């Protein structure tokens, strides 16, 4: 490498943006993978276009992938960009506003044709007028350069054009001093049967790398050292994938067969896709005719003794309410995963939101209580889902898991847990007793009823959606019995506080401001609180995994702070629970933009309060 100036940076935020066809997601994956191998901490977030592929070059067709890599531990994909790679004018149009002043823009000049400029509604070519003066612009004729790199090969021009993303990748590898080998090896594995593609993409990669090296245009190289991560074996994992693994692990730990009944819906479909590969784990996936049948079949499978699961997103969860109510009154184990997306109604299916908390708690007729849990990071989806399964089986109840599009598609390095570290799940069945089996007899501590499944001789019994008589489980219209059952169902859920570990407060245990969050806002809140604390502000952070019931010790912690701020990507749902439960004047930060919070937004609000 030429004797270049090398600057060391703590963190870098890069966004790859281009046409759906330009392979931006793949480019992001590879850069992520390499950064991980180098030992950086990471956060990534793909930003897909609305569902259908729009015409090439159009604004609607732009696909992007953002990642932050760092030499310290980080919790988000970052906010403003240090580097933007824009493969065409539409990508530039959509994303330039997020590039920091003075940030690096890499544009594929070859794609800035009159036609593409028009499609992206640029009056004039931004690479030629002065609209990009605030940035370090590198406009490169990538398409031409890859052609040159492959002159002597006989591959279709389409194939050549397709290697653009690897040219960009190579250039970035050079800029950040990253090894190319892992990517080359990956290409060799992936295209085993298509050697010409290995060759073409490798050449593009190297061409990009050398372009950085040779041309004078790049003044500096940057270095981002490894992060002080906890020692161990790591993998990169998305929230949806971790959710799927959590289910399989819970099934194995509880020795219950895993049954998944669901219907495809963005952004939850991947869980169905993933589980459908696990036949050799005995996993049964049932793609039903609709969400009602999906969860209905799961309730049937639960009655028959399976670890029964369904997953969907807002509109689908809406439809499942009546069946979930049946699981509540028949007290059958069921895990309901809601990968939340922007609503109401169809809303913005590919965008993230946290607005289904109340739907989980109250979206059923009558008093129909169910526990609600929410993971805080992609990797945490594994543990939270596993915990939800444990609770469902131990307490004989439906359990909600609230993830969202941001967690589902976002990824982070994840220290791979060893099976021995995962809590065991004991799931036992009723046994033959002398005297009749009483389906609604309850465990004194948990209030869970005993589970007896078809095939167990002598334990034949009937359950259903009409109110059950305490103990016997027969149909009952007795007023006092109904009141008792309503209370028992509520107490069973309330009693789960015993499952909740002591509430953790990041920062001081008392102070001016506690920021209380839940779910996918963890990273943004933690990063913001860290920042203010480093400014010496008295700010702490508590993040809830359990939304229902709330931790028994939460109240005392809240009272130790002057103010409580509750940021939610909704119009204020957890905050209503907190205010009503603890009668404290908590404030909310509510931005409902289909996007995760930015550090800056939370910091601004905290400063306003302090």
């Amino acid at each position, binding site marked *: 490498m030429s004797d270049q100036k090398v600057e060391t940076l703590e963190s870098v935020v890069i966004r790859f943006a281009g046409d759906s066809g330009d392979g931006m997601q793949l480019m992001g994956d590879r850069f992520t993978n390499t950064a991980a191998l180098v030992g950086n901490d990471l956060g990534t977030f793909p930003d897909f276009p609305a569902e259908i592929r729009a015409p090439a070059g159009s604004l609607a067709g732009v696909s992007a992938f953002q990642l932050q890599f760092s030499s310290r531990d980080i919790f988000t994909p970052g906010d403003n960009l240090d580097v933007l790679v824009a493969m065409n004018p539409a990508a530039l149009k959509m994303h330039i506003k997020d590039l920091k002043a003075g940030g690096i823009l890499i544009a594929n000049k070859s794609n800035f044709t009159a036609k593409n400029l028009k499609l992206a509604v640029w009056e004039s070519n931004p690479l030629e007028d002065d609209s990009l003066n605030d940035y370090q612009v590198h406009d490169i004729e990538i398409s031409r350069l890859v052609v040159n790199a492959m002159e002597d090969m006989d591959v279709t021009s389409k194939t050549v054009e397709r290697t653009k993303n690897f040219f960009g990748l190579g250039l970035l590898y050079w800029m950040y001093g990253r090894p190319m080998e892992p990517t080359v090896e990956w290409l060799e594995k992936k295209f085993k049967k298509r050697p010409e593609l290995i060759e073409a993409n490798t050449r593009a990669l190297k061409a990009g790398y050398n372009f950085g090296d040779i041309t004078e245009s790049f003044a500096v190289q940057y270095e981002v050292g490894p992060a002080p991560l906890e020692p161990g*074996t790591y993998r990169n994992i998305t929230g949806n994938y971790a959710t799927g*693994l959590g289910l399989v692990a819970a099934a194995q730990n509880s020795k219950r067969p895993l049954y998944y009944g669901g219907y495809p819906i963005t952004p939850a479909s991947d869980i169905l896709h993933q589980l459908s590969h696990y036949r050799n*784990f005995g996993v049964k996936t049932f793609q039903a005719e*609709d969400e009602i*049948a999906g969860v209905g079949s799961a309730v049937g499978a639960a009655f028959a003794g399976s670890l029964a699961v369904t997953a969907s997103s807002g509109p689908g969860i809406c439809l499942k309410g*009546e069946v979930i109510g049946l699981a509540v009154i028949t007290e059958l184990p069921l895990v309901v995963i809601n990968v939340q997306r922007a609503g109401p109604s169809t809303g913005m299916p590919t965008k993230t939101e946290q607005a289904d908390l109340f739907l989980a708690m109250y979206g059923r007729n009558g008093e129909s209580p169910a526990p609600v849990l929410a993971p805080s990071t992609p990797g945490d989806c594994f543990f939270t889902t596993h915990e939800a399964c444990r609770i469902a089986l131990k307490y004989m109840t439906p359990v909600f898991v609230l993830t969202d599009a941001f967690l589902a598609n976002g990824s982070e390095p994840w220290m791979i847990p060893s099976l021995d570290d995962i809590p065991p799940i004991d799931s036992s069945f009723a046994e033959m007793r002398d005297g009749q089996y009483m389906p609604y007899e309850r465990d004194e501590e948990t209030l869970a009823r005993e589970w007896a499944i*078809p095939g167990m*001789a002598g334990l*034949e019994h009937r359950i*259903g959606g009409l109110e059950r008589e305490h103990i016997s489980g027969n149909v009952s219209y007795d007023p006092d019995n109904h009141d008792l059952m309503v209370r028992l169902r509520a107490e069973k859920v309330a009693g789960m506080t015993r499952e909740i570990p002591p509430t953790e407060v990041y920062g001081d245990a008392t102070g001016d401001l506690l920021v209380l969050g839940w779910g996918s806002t963890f990273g943004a809140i933690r990063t913001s609180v860290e920042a203010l604390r480093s400014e010496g502000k008295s700010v702490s952070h508590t993040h809830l995994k359990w939304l229902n019931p709330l931790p028994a010790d939460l109240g005392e912690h809240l009272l130790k702070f002057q103010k409580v701020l509750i940021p939610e990507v909704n119009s204020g749902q957890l905050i209503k629970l907190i205010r009503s439960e603890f009668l404290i004047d908590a404030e909310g930060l509510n931005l409902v933009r289909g996007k995760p919070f930015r550090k800056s937004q939370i910091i601004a609000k905290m400063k306003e309060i302090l």
Partner: protein
Amino acid sequence: MTETDVPTLTRKDFVSDQDVRWCPGCGDYSILAQTQKTMPELGVPKEKFVFVAGIGCSSRFPYYMDTFGFHTIHGRAPAIASGVKLANPDLSVWVITGDGDALSIGGNHLIHLLRRNLDINIVLFNNEIYGLTKGQYSPTSEFGKKTKSSPFGSLDRPFNPPSVALGTQSTFVARTVDSNTAHLQASLKRAYEHKGTSFLEVYQNCLIYNDGAFSHVTDKAVKDDNILDLQHGQPMVFGGEGDKGIRLDGFTAEVVTVGKDVSMDDLLVHDEHDKNLAAILANFTEDESLPTPLGVIFSEEQPNYEALMTKQIESAKEKLGEGDLQQLIIGTDTWEVA
């Protein structure tokens, strides 16, 4: 369903301790009685029976069977039963439903179960009315029917349940009548024996809100002239003197008198396995001049969903080996942090 030898069971073994709550004289009583009589004869251990129902008078049925039972919610029994059967293919799963439960709110789950062909037996109590909610017209009520919700007459053209089933890939379609105990018992047996989803329509009298809806096939006086008792491989004869027969002119069936204008050999012969014939038979009830077919209208062997699932699991285990959870969690792309 594996059929192990089991201590011989009797009707009593299937009678639960709950007192039966239907209007005195309701057709449901007979269907319950015939079911309790028939189940012991199937050679299935009692604990392997599961009765799943929706909501309706008919759907209270599981409470009265001393087996595993699930009285679910309105219209969803086929979906819930699918989960039961798929989770444990070893069970004998029965769906008990009504014309409203199965064909109104539950229509979609019904037709999807039929096409998937899980080995589940559907018994549809068709009384052509909503009984439990006190007498509104149902999807099988006749056009123009005056009911609580249609004082000026219903505007809905009714479904023909066997046609619905045939149009949605059903592999077994049969019809029987609540009061015809022998035929009902035989039909339940046939439904059980069919490996795949069995669709059995039972004409059921609701004497409170739709009394006599099926008198044409239940009244001693007239029933023989109105019932066509289907027998596979047999010519279609009926009538008190067994002198009436069915002949086909093109695709249109007509009633003829055997001996007089035609001989036995001119008559249409029933073939359970002919789907096109089945469609024609299903349409009989839409033509006043034709008798009502009872018995097995159609049956064919097709793969069962749950059996295919079991196969997929077994062959996946063969090819890929028992799943290794730790390996799955580790995945392919990892790195070490020291």
